[in-house]
């Protein structure tokens, strides 16, 4: 095979090892779909129609869509503005702001919501929820867009930004927006605290009030259907706007654009953003500690909770990233209908709340894999179902940067397909792997519902302890666990930010 052919043609047959490796996550992702279908069918055809045509379903639909779109739009606006400021302007202290602006990712949405819900009752509303969730999830847009802006060309006034710079960041923006959108479909803790009802909160409510709930399964099916157009649309966007990269060394650093009179307002905006997203929640934790008599209660559980959090998050992250790798690789290197469906499936399942995924695994494992039930292994499978797309998108960015020619060269030198991947591709995508691992650690550490149901018995995590003490009204006892959860999360956020930057700094 000649280099020219390899560079031009994408139609190489998929290697067997890749197909086999990609089948594992695909099979796993089908499990919750089967469970939801089985349980929904219990309602019977007429029951399904009756449930879907209820007035309440319309209310839930409107709320869910308004919230998801509102937060996605808000996160895109803030994310792009912040990314432009730290990458393209002469904002003072840009290097510092780049790290600081990604830190809100370390703040679990339920902690931020708890703080904000007590600031004023007006925050407990749909607009309030959109506001609170936007200021904690915008880094999911900011980080990929910042990375794309750093690597792209173009400068100049506003028109150039819109016509040249932004289009180059479209794929990154689309990927980030899709993550935020599907994330919001499955959000529960924050919305419950902010008193907004969506399909996900309704699903939790169904399981609170009901046993063997077919209506909860139906609501889950609707939720996945809502994720479909988003996952499909983002894929179309990516296909149409495939950004050609000429490999390393071609992008040139451009002089930053002066902010001029906007310098002070921009700085004030950054300070405000961090105060709102980090300052307010930390102030609340401090206040709890100051007034609560349960201060210090359960402090002996801190060690086991940290061990539990890390003991689940670290291996969990490795497993999820290992499952995501073949999917991302197949989607980039061997685009075709099958690899596209395999790549998109996890995004649909990503819209499912943790409770549904956990119950699906209870149902299936107890019947067909009983020895695995309530082992750490099964919980890792649940984490994969919940968080795979986050790992996929982090990996995809870095795989796209490795020219296929490199692999072909290795093949030409006598390596087999897997050998070529191991020798050439793997070392080059390490920044992406690092970013994916960090993001997974972050998500797994704050996961609550599936962990409560599926963790080996007796295992506690920082997140389960925050929930438990909060449930008992011991806010001061909960505060150290919540604070530690944020602080421990800051490390993977830092790693994630650094790795995302490295990706493009290498060019």
């Amino acid at each position: 095979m000649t280099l020219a052919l390899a560079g031009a043609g994408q139609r190489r047959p998929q290697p067997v090892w890749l197909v086999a490796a990609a089948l594992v996550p695909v099979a796993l992702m089908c499990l919750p779909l089967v469970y939801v279908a089985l349980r929904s069918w219990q309602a019977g055809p007429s029951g399904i129609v009756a449930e879907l045509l209820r007035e309440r379903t319309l209310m839930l639909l409107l709320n869910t869509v308004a919230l998801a779109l509102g937060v996605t739009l808000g996160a895109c606006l803030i994310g792009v503005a912040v990314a432009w400021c730290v990458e393209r302007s002469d904002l003072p202290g840009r290097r510092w702001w780049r790290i600081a602006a990604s830190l809100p990712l370390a703040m679990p949405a339920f902690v931020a919501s708890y703080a904000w819900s007590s600031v004023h009752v007006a925050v407990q509303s749909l607009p309030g929820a959109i506001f609170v969730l936007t200021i904690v999830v915008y880094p999911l847009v900011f980080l990929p867009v910042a990375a794309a802006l750093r690597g792209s060309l173009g400068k100049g006034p506003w028109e150039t930004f819109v016509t040249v710079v932004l289009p180059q960041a479209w794929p990154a923006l689309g990927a980030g927006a899709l993550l935020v959108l599907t994330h919001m479909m499955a959000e529960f803790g924050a919305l419950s605290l902010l008193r907004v009802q969506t399909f996900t909160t309704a699903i939790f409510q169904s399981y609170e009030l009901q046993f063997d709930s077919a209506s909860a399964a139906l609501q889950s099916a609707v939720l996945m259907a809502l994720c479909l157009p988003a996952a499909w649309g983002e894929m179309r966007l990516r296909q149409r706007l495939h950004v050609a990269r000429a490999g390393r060394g071609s992008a040139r650093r451009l002089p930053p654009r002066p902010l001029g009179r906007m310098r002070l307002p921009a700085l004030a905006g950054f300070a405000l953003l961090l105060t709102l997203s980090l300052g307010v929640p930390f102030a609340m934790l401090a206040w709890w500690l100051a007034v609560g008599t349960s201060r210090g209660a359960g402090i002996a559980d801190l060690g086991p909770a940290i061990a539990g959090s890390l003991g689940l998050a670290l291996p969990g992250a490795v497993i999820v990233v290992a499952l995501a790798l073949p999917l991302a690789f197949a989607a980039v290197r061997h685009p075709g209908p099958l690899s596209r469906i395999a790549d998109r499936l996890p995004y649909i399942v990503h819209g499912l709340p943790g409770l549904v995924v956990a119950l699906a695994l209870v149902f299936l494992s107890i019947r067909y894999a009983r020895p695995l039930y309530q082992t750490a292994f099964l919980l890792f499978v649940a984490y994969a179902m919940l968080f795979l797309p986050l790992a996929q998108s982090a990996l995809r960015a870095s795989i796209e940067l490795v020219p296929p020619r490199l692999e072909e060269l290795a093949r030409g030198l006598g390596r087999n397909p897997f050998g070529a991947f191991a020798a050439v591709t793997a070392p080059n995508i390490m920044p992406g792997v690092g970013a994916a691992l960090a993001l997974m650690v972050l998500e797994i550490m704050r996961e609550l519902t599936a962990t409560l149901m599926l963790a080996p018995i007796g295992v506690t995590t920082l997140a389960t302890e925050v929930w438990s003490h909060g449930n008992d009204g011991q806010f001061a006892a909960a505060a150290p666990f919540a604070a530690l959860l944020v602080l421990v999360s800051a490390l993977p956020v830092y790693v994630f930010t650094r790795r995302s930057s490295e990706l493009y700094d290498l060019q």
Partner: protein
Amino acid sequence: MPHLDRRGFLKAGAWAAGSAALARPAIGGAWAAGETLTLYNGQHEKTTRALIDVFSGATGIRVNVRQGSSSQLANQLIEEGDASPADVFYSEESPPLVALANRSMLATLDDDTLKQVPPIYAAKDRTWVCASLRSRVVAYNKAMVSEGEFPASVLGFAAEAWKDRVAYVPTSGALLEQIMAIELLDGRDAALEWLKGLKAHGRLYPTNGAAMKAVEDGEIATALINNYYWFSIAQEVGDANMKSALFYYGHKDPGALISATAAGVLKSSRKQDLARRFVAFMVSEGGQQAIVDSMAEYPVRPGIESTFALKPFDELDPPAIGPADIGDAADALVLIREAGLA
């Protein structure tokens, strides 16, 4: 034997992940030698922990706890079926236990255990027993409303006059029980009207704790909750600092309903004797004292004194409705759905 198997798989899973060293301290502890029980616990953790400390201290039996919301745990138990690892289920409300009993998932308890409590607080088919009692109350912010303004019955809160001044929690098992009580006392239409009124005029909160906190913080004037939520916050910030107080309806009003926590032994448990021993301990003097010392609940066994300043049980004058009358509260769910609240 199943324990050995699960241990093996646990290790395998941890090994596969390449982090056996990290995972072991947290996971390995649960598998110490000696007799162990597995408890699925929906009751507040601090209460259950206090109970287990006394039980384990006296018997040497270890109790492993899976913590969760009572209904979610009941759903999990139903999905687990015969293969459930659980031996005992301790629920914050009685309906989840009745739901399991209706599915023939609970074993019968010893007569000696059931005899410890008044007959109204034990299942007629002997599958569950209540562990503690709570009163429905109206929590109110003292600066925003006074007791004189309250309607003659809790039914009166579902009215225009209380627009945005009453908090309710439709996901709470205790509210379901209150709906059942209204249906039993005043009929189905009254219960449905009440729910529709609450939906139109009241403010929905996700949890009882959040509703109580909203009253204490002055976000809303009143909340329909259980008595112990007030005591939990009072314990945290000090009685003297409380901006809210409790109003007890009495006169057999549905607003004065007594609800109960309850426990039962899973039929699928392979440790029936141990499990029954634990439930027997829950209603013993020692068990009851541990429960009422940790949480502002009433003992189910006569002759136990709470350390909290509870309104005396004799003065509550609740309606004559017990957990068996409420059952699994399925009727209440139908009403809640009809009212558009679920």
